C-alpha cells in the first residue's frame, strides 16, 4: 500500500480532528454542500426513502396475489399499485442509486481527486432528483397512474385517466439529474485523475462507472423527449403517436426502449462495478483479465444501444428486425459472460476472505447467472412469443435488477460503510443477513419462473382461471416477506454501528485502492496531499498476505489453547 506520498501517521491524526462529516453541523451545510461525499449521503437517504415506498407497493402486490380472486385491491387500484412499484423502483431507485451514492462518493476518491469536476452541478442534480421524485410521488397521491412504468401509447397519451402528465414531468426532471451526474463522471474521469493514475490503473469500478455515464448521457435525452411528446399529445390532443391521426404507436415503443434497454445496463453496470471491487479485494488477487473486464463494460454500453427491439418481438416490427435484434441480444451475453468467468477465475486459487461483502458478491454471481441465462430464453424470438408478458419475464428482470443490482448495492454498502461512516458494523449479523436475502430472494422469484412458464400473465391480479397457480404465488409472497426482512435488518444494524461500532481505521478490509489510503471518514478535501500513484491496480502482495494469515492462525490457536478451547474447526 505504498502508492502515495502521504505519511500514514500524520493522516491518522488528521482524521481525529476533522472529516467531511463533522466539519460543519448545520442543515444548510448539508443542503448547500458541494462536497461529493455529502451529496452521496443525501442521495443515500433520499433513494432509500423511495426504495421503501416502492417496496410497500411490492408488498401490496404480493399480498393481493395470495388468492386467485384477489384479496384487497380493486382492479384499477392494482394497476396503479404495480405502476407505482415499477416507476418508483426504476426511475427513483435503480437508475439513480449506485451511481449517485457510490459513484458520487468513490469516483473522486478512487482516482485521487479532491472533488468531482462540477460540484455545483452535482448538487443541482440532487435537487433535480428531489423535484422529480416529489412530482412523481405527488402524481401517485393525487390520482396515480395505471399505465405501468412503460407508458405505452396511445393508452397513456389518449385514454388513461389519472396523473400521467405530472408523473412524466417528474421522470423528465429526474432524468436530467441522471444526465448531469453522467456528465460530471465523464469529465472527472477524463480530466481529474491523480498523477500516475493511468487509464489501466483505474479500478474496474471506475471503468464501469464510465460506461454507465456514457449510456446515461446518450440514452436519457431520448426518453426525455419521447415522454415529453406523450405529454404534448395528452395535453393538446396532438397527433404524434396516436394511430387515428396517422401517428405510429410502435414508434413510441422503439424510442422508449432505445432508452429503456440501455437503462437496464445503467442499472446493472454499476452493480458489476461494485462486484469487481469486492471479488478482487476479498480474493486478494489482481482481477483476472483486467483489460477484458474493463473493455467488456464498454462493449456492454455499446451493444446495449443495439438490442432494444427484443422488447418488441410481439409488436408490429418486421420478422427480419426481430432476427437481427435477437442475434445482437445474444452478442451482449459475450461481455457479460466475460465478466462472470473472469470473476470466477479471480476467485480460483485466490486467498478468499468470506466477510459479509464477499458473501453478497458470491450471491450476486449465482443469482445474476440465473438472471442472465433466462435472458437467453427471452432473447430468442421464438420462445419469447410464448413467454411475453408472463411472470417468466417478471422473474427474469427481478433476477437481474433485484438479485443483481440490489445485492451488489448491499454488498457495496457493507464494503464502503466503514469508509463512509468511519465505523465497523457487526460482520456476523451482516453475513446472516446476506443469507437471508439470498434465500428470501430465490424463494420469491424462482416460483415466478415456473408459474410464468405455465402461463401466468404479468399485471393480472386475478387468476381464478388457474387456481393451481396459488401455491407458487403463496411461496413467492412468503419469500418476499423474508426478503423484506433482509432489507430492513441492515437499516438497523448499520445504524446501530454508528453509535456502538468500533472505529474502522483507514483500511479495515486490508483492501487495495486509493480510497483506502485516506482516513475513514475522509477529510473534506479527500486527501491531505494529492496522491501520486506508483503501483498497479489491485496490486496485492500474496506473500505478505500469506505470512499475515499464517500469523493470524497461529495467534488464534495460541489464544484458544490458552483459553482451553479444544475444537479444531476453523470457524471464524
Amino acid at each position: 500500500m505504498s502508492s502515495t506520498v502521504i505519511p500514514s501517521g500524520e493522516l491518522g491524526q488528521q482524521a481525529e480532528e476533522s472529516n467531511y462529516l463533522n466539519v460543519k453541523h448545520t442543515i444548510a451545510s448539508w443542503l448547500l454542500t458541494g462536497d461529493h461525499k455529502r451529496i452521496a449521503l443525501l442521495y443515500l437517504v433520499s433513494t432509500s426513502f423511495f426504495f421503501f415506498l416502492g417496496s410497500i407497493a411490492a408488498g401490496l402486490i404480493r399480498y393481493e396475489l395470495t388468492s386467485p380472486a384477489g384479496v384487497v385491491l380493486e382492479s384499477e387500484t392494482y394497476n396503479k399499485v404495480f405502476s407505482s412499484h415499477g416507476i418508483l423502483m426504476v426511475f427513483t431507485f435503480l437508475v439513480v442509486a449506485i451511481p449517485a451514492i457510490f459513484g458520487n462518493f468513490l469516483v473522486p476518491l478512487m482516482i485521487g481527486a479532491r472533488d468531482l469536476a462540477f460540484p455545483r452541478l452535482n448538487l443541482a442534480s440532487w435537487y433535480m432528483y428531489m423535484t422529480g421524485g416529489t412530482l412523481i410521488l405527488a402524481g401517485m397521491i393525487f390520482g396515480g397512474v395505471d399505465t405501468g412504468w412503460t407508458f405505452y401509447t396511445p393508452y397513456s397519451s389518449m385514454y388513461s385517466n389519472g396523473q400521467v402528465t405530472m408523473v412524466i414531468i417528474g421522470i423528465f426532471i429526474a432524468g436530467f439529474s441522471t444526465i448531469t451526474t453522467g456528465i460530471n463522471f465523464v469529465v472527472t474521469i477524463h480530466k481529474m485523475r491523480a498523477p500516475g493514475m493511468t487509464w489501466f490503473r483505474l479500478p474496474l469500478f471506475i471503468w464501469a462507472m464510465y460506461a454507465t455515464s456514457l449510456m446515461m448521457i446518450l440514452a436519457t435525452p431520448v426518453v426525455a423527449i419521447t415522454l415529453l411528446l406523450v405529454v404534448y399529445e395528452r395535453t393538446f390532443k396532438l397527433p404524434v403517436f396516436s394511430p387515428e391521426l396517422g401517428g405510429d404507436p410502435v414508434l413510441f415503443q422503439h424510442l422508449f426502449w432505445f432508452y429503456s434497454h440501455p437503462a437496464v445496463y445503467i442499472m446493472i453496470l454499476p452493480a458489476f462495478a461494485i462486484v469487481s471491487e469486492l471479488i478482487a479485494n476479498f480474493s486478494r488477487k489482481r482481477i483476472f483479465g483486467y483489460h477484458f473486464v474493463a473493455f467488456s463494460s464498454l462493449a456492454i454500453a455499446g451493444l446495449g444501444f443495439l438490442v432494444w427491439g427484443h422488447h418488441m418481438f410481439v409488436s408490429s416490427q418486421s420478422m427480419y428486425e426481430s432476427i437481427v435484434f435477437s442475434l445482437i441480444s445474444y452478442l451482449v451475453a459475450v461481455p457479460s459472460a466475460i465478466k462472470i468467468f473472469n470473476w470466477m477465475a479471480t476467485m480460483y486459487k485466490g486467498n478468499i476472505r468470506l466477510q459479509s461483502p464477499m458473501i453478497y458478491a458470491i450471491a450476486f454471481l449465482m443469482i445474476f447467472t440465473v438472471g442472465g441465462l433466462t435472458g437467453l430464453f427471452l432473447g430468442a424470438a421464438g420462445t419469447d412469443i410464448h413467454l411475453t408478458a408472463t411472470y417468466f419475464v417478471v422473474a427474469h428482470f427481478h433476477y437481474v435488477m433485484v438479485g443483481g443490482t440490489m445485492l451488489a448495492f448491499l454488498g457495496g454498502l457493507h464494503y464502503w460503510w466503514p469508509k463512509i461512516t468511519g465505523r465497523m458494523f457487526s460482520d456476523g449479523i451482516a453475513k446472516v443477513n446476506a443469507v437471508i436475502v439470498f434465500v428470501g430472494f430465490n424463494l420469491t422469484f424462482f416460483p415466478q419462473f415456473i408459474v410464468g412458464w405455465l402461463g401466468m400473465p404479468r399485471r393480472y391480479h386475478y387468476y381464478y382461471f388457474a387456481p393451481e397457480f396459488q401455491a407458487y404465488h403463496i411461496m413467492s409472497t412468503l419469500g418476499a416477506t423474508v426478503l423484506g426482512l433482509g432489507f430492513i435488518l441492515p437499516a438497523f444494524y448499520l445504524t446501530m454501528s454508528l453509535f456502538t461500532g468500533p472505529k474502522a481505521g483507514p483500511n479495515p478490509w486490508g483492501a487495495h485502492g486509493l480510497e483506502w489510503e485516506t482516513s475513514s471518514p475522509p477529510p473534506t478535501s479527500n486527501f491531505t496531499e494529492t496522491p501520486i500513484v506508483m503501483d498497479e491496480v489491485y496490486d496485492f502482495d500474496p506473500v505478505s498476505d500469506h505470512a499475515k494469515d499464517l500469523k493470524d492462525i497461529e495467534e488464534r490457536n495460541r489464544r484458544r489453547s490458552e483459553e482451553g478451547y479444544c475444537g479444531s474447526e476453523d470457524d471464524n
Partner: protein
Amino acid sequence: MSAITNTSDHGHDSALHHQFEDIGQQNDSYIVGMWVFLSTEVMFFGALFFIYTLYRWNYQLDFYIAHEHLDVKLGAINTSVLLFSSFTMVMAVQSAQLKRRLHVIGYLLTTIVCACTFLVIKYFEYSSKIADHLYPGAGFATDAHAAFGAHAFEAGKLAVNMNHAQLFYALYFGMTGLHAVHIIAGILVILALIRLWVIRAKSVTLDYIPTEMVGLYWHFVDLVWIFLFPLFYLMPKPH
C-alpha cells in the same frame, strides 16, 4: 460546505476552483463538459429528427402540401440572422482571447439582438399559422381551402390527408418550439455572461474559456436551425 464557492488559496489565479490543480485542468474540464453536454443535446433533438424522418417518409405528399404554407422568405431571413449571430459570437470569443472587454460586450449584445430578431420573426410566422387554424388539435384547418390554397385540391377533391398535415404541424411547432426554447435559454446565458464582463469578474476576464463555452452552446443552437430550415421549408416535390 463553503467549498462549493471556494476558490483555491494556492496562487494568484482566483478564477481557479478548489477541486482543480491548475487553470489548464479546469479549462479542459469545462470544455470536455460542454461537449459532453452538447452530445446529450444531439440525442435530445436526434429523437425528434428521427420521428420527423419516419413520418415524412410515410406521408411524403401530405407533408409536401402542408409545408407550402410555410414562408420560405421569412425562414431564409431567420437563417441568415442566426448565421450572422454565430459570426458575432465567434468575434466575441476572439475578442475574449485578446482580452478586449468592450469588444466582447459589443459582440455579445449584437448576438442577443440577432436572437431577439429571430424570435420576433418566428412570432409573426407562428401568428400567421394560428390565424389559418394550422395549429394541431381539434379545430385544425377546418377550412382547408383557406389554409392550403387551391393546389391542395385535385379535381375538386382534397388531395391532402388532413390528419397527416396535422402531424406535420405538430412536428413543426414541436421542433421549432423546442429550438426557440433553446434560443431563449441562450439569450439568458449570454446576458449572464455580459453581466460578468461588465462587472469585470475574474472568472471571465482572466480566461476566454467561459466565453468559449457559451459560444459552443450558441453554435449548437444555430446548427439545429441549419437542419430545421431545409427539413421544414425546403421540401422538393415528391413524384
